[in-house]
């Protein structure tokens, strides 16, 4: 009992020592200094026999084992008549089984162990991810490499997957937000692997032979980077991985060329008809690549314009001042090796569609023509500097970030130099990049909504919508055929 009291008194003293004076507002507070240096990718990088690269961090805090294989392959490497191959592969790499085991047996076993094994395919990367308790490391790891190396793409599960995917095409025009992003990308990127949509015929055209050929081409040790973390010994893991990857051959594949020229769509309004009570809107044009040296200034600029949530201009004006919307802002999206998009976005009731667009266009112009305030740039820069350590909260996420840097050919000192580059952004640089990368006169304004009330407008902004530029009606496509719906 006495010991308890001493402990508690000790705590009180510590507490009293740390307790600052009662502050009333944030400006009254001062904070102890905090120094944080990010981990260095070099400390975690390993090249296993056969050229398989990995970022590995033992982490004994929990009895878990996590491993992800990032493969350089994806939807952009698929020919047009096979569109959807990536989705089918995403489903069938596991469900189609391996040469040794059927898919359901693999899934049942991983599930029985309380583990998870998932595979998904994106534009240019695909990821196979396993998580198991560390007591099941050996079995999990063997299954992981079996699936990665020896998928069998059996006919029966493939047939079922294609039938289900074709059935799900019926839902493609259900959500206004997906219709919008599809129409927006289509205008900006044109007829390109980025915008091709699977149809009944393209799904039906995907064969087990296609999947096998695709797998054989891209799933080679030199085209894969691993990210690994959890409760294991680094040397023991190396031995296990090298044993499981022995005899795995193949160099870096030849990748299909990805077109880099895109159409210049006519600025104006592009309207997709849908019977809903709001307009879903995106307005803008193509953006930049994240390897562009202006990337950091663009991040800060967009934070102020519409990326910094409630501290951004678009949210303040459109949501907070006017009550026009719940969700609004601006964003730069990024794609590996290709320009991303820039867009302002909002969803608002039909009668205020024109008004909300006009307010966003005003903000596009304002950030180009006048310097941002000291307070705005201070908030934006401090946000990026002070939140930096967030990226390294989990070992597995950190290993994934490093593996992705290497995969996409970014400088390995990206994190090390990140804060200095953000700190170097000035008000003048913000205005420079706003002028350079936001061009309202080139913007397409894509709207999904109910034409009559959207076009009519309301009290604060009366229609018609062609006040914003020539109106083009965009037809929905029949998801089964890919043909326009007349």
């Amino acid at each position: 009992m006495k010991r308890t009291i001493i402990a508690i008194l000790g705590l009180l003293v510590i507490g009293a020592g740390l307790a600052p004076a009662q502050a009333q507002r944030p400006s009254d507070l001062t904070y102890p200094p905090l120094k944080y240096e990010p981990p260095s990718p070099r400390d975690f990088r390993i090249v296993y026999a056969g050229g398989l690269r990995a970022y590995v961090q033992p982490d004994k805090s929990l009895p878990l084992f996590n491993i992800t294989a990032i493969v350089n392959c994806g939807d952009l490497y698929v020919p047009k008549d096979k569109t959807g191959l990536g989705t089918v592969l995403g489903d069938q790499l596991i469900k189609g089984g391996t040469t040794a085991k059927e898919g359901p047996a693999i899934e049942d076993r991983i599930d029985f162990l309380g583990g998870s094994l998932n595979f998904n395919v994106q534009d240019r990367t695909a990821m196979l991810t396993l998580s198991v308790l560390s007591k099941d490391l050996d079995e999990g790891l063997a299954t992981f490499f079996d699936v990665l190396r020896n998928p069998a793409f059996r006919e029966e599960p493939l047939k079922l997957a294609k039938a289900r995917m074709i059935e799900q095409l019926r839902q493609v025009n259900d959500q206004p937000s997906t219709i919008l992003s599809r129409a927006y990308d289509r205008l900006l990127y044109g007829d390109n692997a980025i915008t091709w949509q699977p149809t009944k015929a393209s799904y039906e055209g995907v064969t087990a032979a296609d999947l096998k050929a695709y797998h054989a081409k891209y799933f080679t040790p030199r085209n894969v980077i691993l990210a690994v973390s959890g409760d294991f010994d680094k040397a023991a893991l190396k031995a296990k991985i090298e044993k499981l990857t022995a005899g795995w051959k193949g160099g870096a594949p030849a990748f299909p060329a990805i077109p880099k020229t895109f159409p210049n769509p006519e600025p104006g309004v592009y309207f997709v008809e849908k019977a809903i009570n709001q307009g879903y809107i995106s307005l803008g044009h193509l953006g930049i690549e994240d390897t562009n040296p202006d990337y950091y200034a663009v991040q800060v600029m967009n934070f102020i314009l519409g990326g910094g949530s409630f501290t951004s201009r678009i949210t303040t004006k459109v949501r907070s001042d006017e009550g026009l919307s719940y969700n609004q802002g601006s964003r730069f999206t990024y794609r590996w090796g290709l320009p991303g998009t820039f867009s302002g976005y909002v969803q608002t009731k039909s009668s205020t569609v024109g008004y909300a667009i006009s307010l966003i266009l005003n903000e596009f112009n304002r950030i180009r023509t006048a310097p941002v305030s000291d307070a705005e740039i201070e908030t934006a820069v401090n946000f990026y500097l002070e939140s930096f350590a967030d990226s390294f909260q989990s070992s597995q996420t950190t290993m994934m970030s490093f593996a992705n840097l290497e995969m996409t050919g970014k400088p390995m000192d990206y994190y090390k130099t990140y804060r200095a580059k953000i700190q170097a952004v000035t008000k003048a640089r913000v205005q420079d990049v706003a002028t350079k990368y936001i061009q309202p006169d080139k913007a397409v304004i894509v709207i999904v909504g109910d034409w009559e009330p959207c076009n009519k407008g309301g009290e604060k902004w009366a229609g018609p919508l062609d006040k914003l530029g020539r109106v083009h009606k965009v037809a929905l496509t029949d998801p089964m055929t890919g043909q326009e719906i007349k």
Partner: protein
Amino acid sequence: MKKRILFLIAAVFVVAAFAAAADVTLDVKEHVLANGMKILMIPKPGVPRVVCHVYFKVGSINERPGITGSAHIHEHLMFKGTKVMGVTDDAADAKIDAQIDELMGQIYREKFWKTDGDQAKIAALQKQVDELAKAEKAFIIKDDLWTQYMKNGGTALNASTSQETTGYYVTLPSNKIELQMLMESDRMMNAVFREFYSEKDVIMEERRLSENRPGYFFGEQVNAAFYTASPYHWDVIGWMDDLRKVTKKDLTDFHKTYYVPNNAVAIYVGDFDPAAVVALAEKYFGRIPKGPDLEPIRDGEPPQYGEKRMYGEGPAPTSLQMMFHIPPAGDPDAQALSILASTLGSGGGGFRGGMGGGGGTGRLYKNLVRDKQVAVSASASSRPQWYVGAFQFSATPRLDKGVKPEDLEKEIWAEIEKVKKEGLTEEEIQKAKNRGEAMFIRSLGSTSGLASQVGRAELMRGWRSILTDLDALKKVGNDDIKRVAAKYFVKDNSLTAIYTRKGR
């Protein structure tokens, strides 16, 4: 003097509770302030960040007809400033705000109390309101709290409202926990609901976003039909008519009742010294006066005494939904029902952003999707909730094969009858237990997920319920499975909803 020391000991007593599951422990340090507010801490040394969450034991189930949506509106209003935040001159602002409230009161009477309100009068009053709102802008510092958090490196900044709880979230650098303590305690004590009327417009837009999700209206009606007496009857967003008519006074009353320290839990997960957090909590949250005790909600759900069926048509996928009333969390039957949901429904969802995805190891997936090929997806879930629970089967038919929702309904009933008779296999039960345990271990590795799970659990059954539930899960046997299936999966306890796509 002695009494004082005893009081201090009680007030500063930090309990380190260790509870073991498998080979790992959930270690939550607890501290209770004199005003009843609980402070929970899970230190995780390493990266210098701290997840800071505050949870209140209030959600849409604490509303009543006429003020539905209030818990969520209130959550929005908590970002609209306080006597010290978001304003340059509180007295001047308050004067204008009071005038706006007075005029809006008159507008509401014309609009909502009368069937033939004077439109000219409404327009004239609205004009005065617009002018005052414009004048008030001079005193308002927009989104002050949000900006303070952002410029100090706050991430995962958000708030959310559910049926049962409301949470306020931020993750900060570990040297800035005091900022959270200051601003969160300030808005508990000093909230001022500025820009109330334009914020209601924002929330109506939020509701419209839901309405434009195909099938939303039908789903809202299904839920309302399933719960008749209990306040789970309405969605968290509330009915549109109530959103229009709810008043600022409704919301200030709501605040006074529920936003008291004895109805709140603050939880910290990350790299910090618990003693320092306790000292700060005493200083900031400790200054808030205790409120009256709160009575739990009164309305349970009466027995249904008859099967319910609903049919709808519209722009969403053709589908089947079967719902059954089950007891709330903590009931001895809850874990057997959870194993049933896991075994029948696991991985039965769609893919490509569909309904869940996953491995496809559940019975419904294997039988209906893979072997008989009559469904695109088929899944089951068990939601115990705090006061009344629901078990749900969902399935979408293979239209290309001419399958109808009613056909899937028969298939699912056949599966149910089989379970009533035979239960599950030993392997299936063991699998569900393994999954439960692994999920628990994984949850310990997260920061915000752990804060959310532990913080919310504390409000109702205490955070240790996470561990006792896991123990209860491990004890479930096949007799329990057969018993609960027979008890709850009966037509008089069910609602079956059939939706058919119409048009494009």
